[in-house]
């Protein structure tokens, strides 16, 4: 596998408290990979480290086999083609839907391309088109998730990092979101997702990692992982 992103022996602490310990993973262009883990397992910590928002204690993160992401600032990592759908949406709630989308294209050289991407997104999500001048904080949870996803796609990233995209959404909307993940991937974007909704995530993913208290305890093709008892262990916190 020629990796788009490669993480080696990543360790991250908050002060003296370790949150992620010796995590290695990789994703190739065109793939969907998922990291499954319970609350507090360290999923968001991994994502934020990839984005340059946290300073890991140890490890290496390489993009396209060469660029060392640990040396870059978040905005420089974004420029390489890495986009983010944060946990709990994290829209700019005081800004309009349109401003949120425009900020998704901030720093892009080609303005007409950004405008075209925004138009495409508003066509793909007609509900957002109707609400483009509304303050993002006033949208429903499902609509907000659509804005968060659309915002991340404006820059036409090569790698999309999704932090629990199904969190707090109604079952029907959850199905839409996972359908959307497939669609995004079909457009040639690699998707690295962290999730607690194992059943749905394993259906769309090619490969899965199980994360428990900051360590990867299992990894393999999603279909294989789906059949494993350890999935139950991680999510129920019980014993096999």
């Amino acid at each position, binding site marked *: 596998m020629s990796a788009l992103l490669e993480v080696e022996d990543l360790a991250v602490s908050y002060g003296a408290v370790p949150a992620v310990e010796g995590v290695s993973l990789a994703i190739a262009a065109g793939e969907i990979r998922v990291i499954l883990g319970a609350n507090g397992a360290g999923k968001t910590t991994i994502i*934020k480290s990839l*984005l*340059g*928002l946290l300073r890991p204690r140890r490890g290496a993160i390489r993009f396209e086999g060469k660029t060392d992401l640990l040396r870059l*600032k*978040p*905005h420089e*990592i*974004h*420029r390489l083609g890495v*986009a*983010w759908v*944060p946990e709990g949406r*994290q829209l*700019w*709630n*005081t*800004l309009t839907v349109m*401003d949120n989308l*425009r*900020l*998704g294209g*901030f*720093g*892009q050289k080609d303005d007409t391309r950004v405008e075209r991407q925004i138009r495409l997104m508003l066509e793909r999500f007609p509900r957002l088109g109707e609400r483009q001048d509304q303050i993002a904080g006033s949208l429903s949870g499902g609509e907000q998730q659509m804005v968060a996803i659309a*915002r991340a796609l404006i*820059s036409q990233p090569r790698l999309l990092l999704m932090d629990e995209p199904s969190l707090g959404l109604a079952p029907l909307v959850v199905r839409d979101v996972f359908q959307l993940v497939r669609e995004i991937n079909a457009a040639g974007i690699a998707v690295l997702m962290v999730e607690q909704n194992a059943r749905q995530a394993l259906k769309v993913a090619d490969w899965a990692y199980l994360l428990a208290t900051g360590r990867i305890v299992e990894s393999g093709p999603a279909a294989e992982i789906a059949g494993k008892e350890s999935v139950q262990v991680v999510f129920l916190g019980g014993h096999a």
Partner: protein
Amino acid sequence: MDLFLQQVANGLVIGSTYAVVAIGFALAFTVLRVINFAHPDIFMVGMFTGLVAATQYPVVGVGLVMLAGMLGAGAVGFVLERTVIAPLRGRDVLMTLIGTLGVAIMLQNGMALIAGPDPVAFPSLLPRRSIDIGPVALTLRQIANFAICLLLLALVSFYVRGTSYGRATRAIAERPDVAAAFGVNVGRICQFTILLASLMAGAAAVSVGMLYGSASAFVGLLYGLKAFICMLVAGNRYFEGVMVVAIAIGIIEALVTGYLSSSLRDAVAFFVMIGVLYYRPNGLFGSYSS
């Protein structure tokens, strides 16, 4: 009724000045989460660099004196950001608060050493003339001050609402991490924000110097305090809210001066603050949670 209108007009003039200083405070606090206690003294430095330009080169005219004020204030703001704010930003707010307070004290006393502790005359660059607008009479200097401050407020409002950098600035104010992850160079915008606030303060300072015909090393104290109160009363969510509150406080002060006593004037802002924060601790227009 005439007194009322006259005092409202006087209040607009002074309130617009508070608004310019307050916006500088609010930009630093909202965007950088920094309480920049040196901001009022950046204003003061702008006043003195304007004063130097006006006395050394009497023929340069109002525009160039104002430019000198902006350059002086901008230079101090730039250095302050590089040396104190940028290294301390992102840690406890107390760090930058104490750091900028230290710079404020240095600037005040440094200027008092150079220019003396007492107020000095600021050259009157505009003719002494009074203009009647209906029942209200304003001096040319008052009108100039109001026009300059209003222009500065309009410019900053346009920047924040109408440009892509301004949009990124608001994005940082609400969620700095997300802004960074979406390609915004947060450090660069923070740097520019402090510079912008300082340039505005410099322009307003020259305008105030002309208005009162005097400059003092300690002029920042009163403006700083009132501007800070304006920000607390408005909350840090909307820059325009800070402008509105500043102008309102200016008007209330002028009315108190006109109808009650000028010795009560400087207490007005405090009464407004205590009253508003009692009922709305996040300010009239709301604040971002930090």
